[in-house]
């Protein structure tokens, strides 16, 4: 039996040879030095560690490496190279939706997950989509507004 786990990480194929029970969060931060993936609660409560796994938003603290084998992982470091990121980045700046910034990598990927499924979401849909991402600074309204602006400005991207 092969002792390696292969997956695509930000569009590059990578090999991991450690334990299949390790958290994706820890491996991304410690082995691949992708520290944009934030560690908050390690129990799926805060969403700071969110990444996209096979195009779906997941809490990387709740994913074991064996589950990632053969999969496609996108972190904020990979996502920031996209046109969609540029639109979200500008929109978040416009509404001052970023204060301490700790939740923002997860929040941006949650926004991508919302918009890729529904390019013109209602405020209610946005709130549902970011309901697993805690922000202790902004009170959420600026973030919801930013995602609404991104939906309008990014016409055709999602």
């Amino acid at each position, binding site marked *: 039996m092969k002792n390696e786990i292969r997956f695509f990480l930000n569009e590059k194929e990578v090999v991991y040879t450690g*334990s299949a029970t390790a958290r994706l969060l820890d491996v991304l931060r410690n082995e691949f030095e992708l520290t944009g993936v934030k560690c908050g609660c390690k129990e799926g409560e805060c969403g700071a560690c969110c990444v996209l*796994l096979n195009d779906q938003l997941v809490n990387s603290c709740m994913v074991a490496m064996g589950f990632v084998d053969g999969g496609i992982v996108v972190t904020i470091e990979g996502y920031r190279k996209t046109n969609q990121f540029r639109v979200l980045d500008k929109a978040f700046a416009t509404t001052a939706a970023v204060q301490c910034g700790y939740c923002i990598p997860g929040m941006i990927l949650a926004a991508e997950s919302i918009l890729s499924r529904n390019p013109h979401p209602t405020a209610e849909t946005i709130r*549902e*989509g970011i309901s*697993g*991402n805690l922000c202790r600074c902004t009170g959420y309204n600026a973030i919801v507004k930013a995602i609404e602006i991104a939906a309008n400005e990014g016409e055709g991207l999602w």
Partner: protein
Amino acid sequence: MVNGYAPSGMREALDILSKTSAIPYAGGTDLMIQEVPADTNYLFLHRIRDLKCITVDAEYFICGACCTYTELLNSRHTPDLLKEAIARIAAPAIRNTATIGGNVANASPKADAALILMVTDTLVRIQSKNGVRIVPISDLYLGRGQIDLLPGELITEFWMPNNRAHLPHSYEKVGGRKALAISRVSFAGISDVSDGQITHFATAFGAVSDVIIRRPELDALLIGKSIEEAKVAKEEYLAKMDETLVPIQGRVSAAYRKAVCMNFLEDFLAKNGI
């Protein structure tokens, strides 16, 4: 892989399960918050297509144990009652990986999807290298975190009877917040009233005891009765339910849990004209 197996088919998975002490890993959302010894091996089930089916036949709504909540929410086959409960579980990122089989196997009395499986008298298909057995879900729970599975056995499917899955229903959940809320009290009820006769009546209470509470022998007090007869039997029914509901003290008081349970039950009776 190190500390893990990722079989692509059921036969291989059951073979590994029969020979090792590997822990089945479905969505991981309950497993990953537990402390496990460094030499623990996981049996990753996500590649097994047989565990991902969602279908309906003449008698049952059938779903594989490794269907995620998101997959169940997106399926046209999933009964509304189950969708209502799932929509209020956790948040999208968790629903994208958490599975219905994991929810049941974790054997928490707060398991929201399991509550719906209980109230609908869902059957559980369990498979091992030696064969298959099918049991009512209520027989599966032995206590908090304890489930009646033998070594080498794997939960593979849930069979929810169609004649239960689509009845008029109520689902209630009390949590500390809107999203990511773990149930403090949950209630599900289904009923079938045709021409003024109660032909089916079932209730279940979650998060109040070591296991989800389902008392079909008490619900039977109302079955077969007219609404008027049920109104007469209501006092005895409520008294017996009051006796059987003995909530545990947790982050919220037992008295609060009891009061909420009885309120939900009385509301459900009133909704049915009883």
